[in-house]
């Protein structure tokens, strides 16, 4: 289960594509795969155990949704202007 690969977003508190690119490189060095880089942050993916190792917080999975259960600790390489790191939640399509 901890080997399941899931997406996540590193959201920046500012619009800064250069910073997003720099953080994408750092995330890549940690072993994450980069999905997309925008001025608002980086979409990336990795195995659950990798998230736990890099951000030093356990990831809980319930109904196919994931969350850090303790406050995550950002590595020093990606600390400034990071608003959050979150796992996307399935939306409802209003049919």
């Amino acid at each position: 289960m901890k080997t399941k690969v899931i997406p996540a977003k590193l959201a920046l508190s500012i619009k800064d594509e250069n910073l997003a690119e720099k953080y994408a490189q750092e995330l890549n060095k940690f072993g994450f795969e980069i999905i997309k880089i925008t001025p608002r942050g980086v979409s990336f993916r990795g195995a659950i155990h990798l998230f736990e190792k890099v951000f030093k917080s356990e990831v809980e999975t319930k109904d196919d949704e994931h969350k850090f259960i303790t406050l995550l600790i950002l590595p020093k390489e990606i600390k400034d202007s990071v608003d959050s790191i979150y796992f996307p939640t399935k939306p409802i399509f209003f049919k």
Partner: protein
Amino acid sequence: MSDKIRIRLVPKTKGGESITMDLREIRPFYAKRLAPDVNRASEALKQSFSIGIESKLTRHNSLDAFIPRQKIKELFKADLVEQIPSKTKAIAYKSAKKFITTEKELKVPENMKDTIAFAYIPTPPEFYGISFIPPNVSLYQLRLLDVLRSLNGSLCHRNGWTGRNIRVAMADTGFAKHPYFDSQGYNIQRTATPEISDPSIDDVGHGTGESANVLILAPDCQFIGVKHDDYSALALETSLEQNPQILTNSWGWNIDKMSKSQLQNLNPNLFNELRDVENIINDALDDGIIVLFAAGNGHLAFPASLPEVISVGGVYVDKDGSLEASSYASSFRSQLYPGRQVPDVCGIVGEFSYTEPMKGHIMLPVPNGSELEGENMPSTKKNKGWGIFSGTSAATPQIAGVVALMLCSNLNLTSVQVKSILGETAKDVAKGKTALDDEATIGPDLATGFGFVDAYEACLAANRMT
């Protein structure tokens, strides 16, 4: 699945001409010379048995062979792959059977090289069972042309406001190819978030069906369907990369029942996602993009409650054209954004009922085999490729279509002006209750906001501002 794979072996011609030559060069008298040679075919049959291939000669002097999977690579030097038929990915997703093929050309076995020209694994053909014409159903429902007329869009078209050159993006479950769209000659582009390979796969049918609401109102717009992979920030970012003028969204989260600080305590992960989505949408609004969100069907929906977006609720259009608040659509006071009321304006949404069929919904094209195929309809084969549904998911793209018409009549409108004009020109709705029990009354109200959108009046008002 059978362990044996069918392979067609095509013998060389009598004269040795290549059977794969350019077909344009084949004149009728010449074509016969390119037919597989019967003697070579008989020889090939013997050769095939000698290497353990079980085959038979066809009427047209080719060999039909059934070869165990594990021997294919050894004999034909090609790896097998499983594929879903390309178009049925979209049209007949559920009923589509995977088939075996190869990515590389099959190499003819060494001992058959003098008799066999080439070999291939037959690809199953696609059968198009769905029609561009919606089926007849006795239930009271609206056709797409009724949607156009009810929202007073026909008059806009007569004035030349058809959405031409306006780019409308919609993030949803997928945008399948459907004969209905082809028959209308719409300009549709399909794209997807980086995680998805094929945006035309829509196993729900939601995006495909609801997109028809934009297109009936703004038939000449450049529609961009962005397949949403349950990762909303990514779907929004991908949509915005397409440089739309209008972004319509028929999705959200049922979370506007608490303040932001309560949400942060209860679900910090979703709170973070909300803030990110909020930033992305606000950036889009700052860039001049007009953003619409569905109010929800009994949900308390964010991002519809984001103050600057146009939130769209629902009005039921009765057989006689009278209007009332839809019992299927949402209306609420936002807790996330105190002072904000949802919806701003309304499009067409049917009525709610605990039992199907539900009246006043819309006949929409959906992929064959999708979840919404046959929705709210008696189950017969004739209903393939269509479903009757709406929700604020339908109302929102309708209003996005109206906004495209407005931009045709005045390209310089800002998002704030569009929202204001839609409200000022809307028809008041003074009857009916929403899914959340809010009653429509005379004048603007919580149930329907400023009321039911009038495309023509909105376009005229927009045009007066030029």
